[in-house]
């Protein structure tokens, strides 16, 4: 703020022959409450007074403004309206500024020897801008009030989504299980080859829909020797676990394999 008018305001205060205590100060008591609500606070009231009397905001005649402000506040207090503390605080601030301006000023103004009104002016200007900004924002079209977003019905085919898993999930779960088993000494762990187990399932599945299956037929479509061995081991394992019966009705005759109790299962 290097505005020269701010450096020496004392002359100005007296220099401006301002309005006498405003006539418009009188407000019918019943309107006072509404009047009070009209203002958003002391800054708002001050801005109103500055406007009303065409005061220069950059060179506020403090005596005048303070007198008017106090008059309003006193009127409101006299009618015992609940007055926000901020209004009284502002009264104190105005009087403080006014009294500081009455003090003699040093001949050579120091750097920090600012106009006592500067802070108030800054606040008034900022508040005024915010007021205008609020009006501007308020004037903007608002969704739901001034326009509607397009929003049509989505014709959902609701389909229940099933959980998905991946092999790694399964493996991790298996590992965790094994780890748990390892910690539990009461269980005996036997790791077995997957392939033999797979062969066991295949054989059982193969047997399930049929009755007696010739032993050789079980392996007839296996060309891989490892697979053959695994399948044979699987068959033995199935027998050991009492899952299949292996019978040979005649000596050196055909060996038949059949799943146990398939009939009961059906």
């Amino acid at each position, binding site marked *: 703020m290097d505005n020269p008018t701010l450096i020496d305001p004392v002359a100005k205060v007296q220099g401006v022959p301002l309005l006498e205590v405003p006539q418009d100060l009188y407000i019918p008591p019943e309107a006072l409450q509404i009047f009070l609500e009209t203002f958003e606070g002391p800054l708002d009231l001050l801005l109103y007074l500055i406007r009303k009397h065409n005061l220069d905001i950059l060179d506020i005649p403090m005596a005048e403004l303070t007198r008017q402000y106090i008059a309003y506040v006193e009127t409101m207090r006299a009618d015992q309206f609940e007055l926000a503390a901020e209004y009284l605080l502002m009264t104190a601030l105005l009087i403080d500024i006014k009294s500081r301006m009455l003090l003699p000023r040093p001949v050579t103004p120091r750097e920090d020897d600012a106009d006592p009104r500067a802070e108030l002016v800054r606040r008034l200007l900022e508040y005024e801008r915010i007021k205008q900004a609020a009006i501007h924002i308020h004037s903007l079209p608002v969704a739901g009030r001034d326009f509607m977003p397009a929003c049509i019905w989505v014709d959902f085919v609701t389909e229940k989504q099933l959980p998905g898993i991946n092999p790694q999930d399964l493996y991790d779960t298996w590992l965790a299980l094994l780890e748990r088993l390892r910690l539990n000494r009461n269980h005996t762990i036997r790791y077995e080859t997957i*392939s033999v187990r797979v062969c066991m399932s295949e054989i059982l599945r193969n047997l399930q829909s049929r009755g007696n299956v010739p032993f050789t037929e079980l392996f007839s479509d296996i060309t891989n020797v490892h697979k053959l061995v695994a399948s044979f081991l699987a068959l033995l394992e199935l027998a050991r676990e009492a899952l299949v019966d292996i019978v040979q009705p005649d000596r050196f005759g055909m060996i038949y394999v059949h799943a146990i109790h398939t009939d009961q299962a059906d």
Partner: protein
Amino acid sequence: MSTQSILTKPTEATAFQPDQVVRILETVLLTTPEPLSISDLKKLFEGNIDKKTLHESLTILSEKWHDSGINLVSVAGGWRFQSKPEMQVFLDRLNPQRPPRYSRAVMETLAIIAYRQPVTRGDIEEIRGVAVSTQIIKTLESRGWIETIGQRDIPGKPYLYATTRHFLDDLNLQSLEQLPSLDSFNSLDLSADEAESVDTDTTTIQESGEPASHEPTQLL
């Protein structure tokens, strides 16, 4: 204020141009997900429209949108625009549903059946150390991932469970051997005695099933 006066102009007009009717109906129907009844739509024109004009306009609108991804339909509550079913795949991409997950119990049961099949419920319970609820088995069965492939010839004749072809398909596997193998488990730091048992078993795997891991499709 000035906007207001512009906005109210159409009100004063007593008759609406046909294309204006269509334009208004379109705008209102596109911004309202709920169906609008004929009486709702009449309100738009403050009654200055007859039923026939309204229906004609709706027909025009319906035809206008015929080839798009949305259509104008009449449902119980009235008229509304809605997306065509074939657009759902795109809408789903926008808001992907968070896929549900199986509980640990289900996953463990499935893992046991996958790695140790064929197994009975008792086997599963022994490994898991807790009872296996019927619900878990049903969940996996109804998913088509496990099936009974027989019964064990012991008292109670328990069913034997195995994983299905469908399970492999869903997991994008060609065979069970493509499941991460237990080999990598061996690298875990196991206590001596068990490490041994694993080793011997690994030998079995290597002997009998070794080709499986290298030539997974060969066995099926």
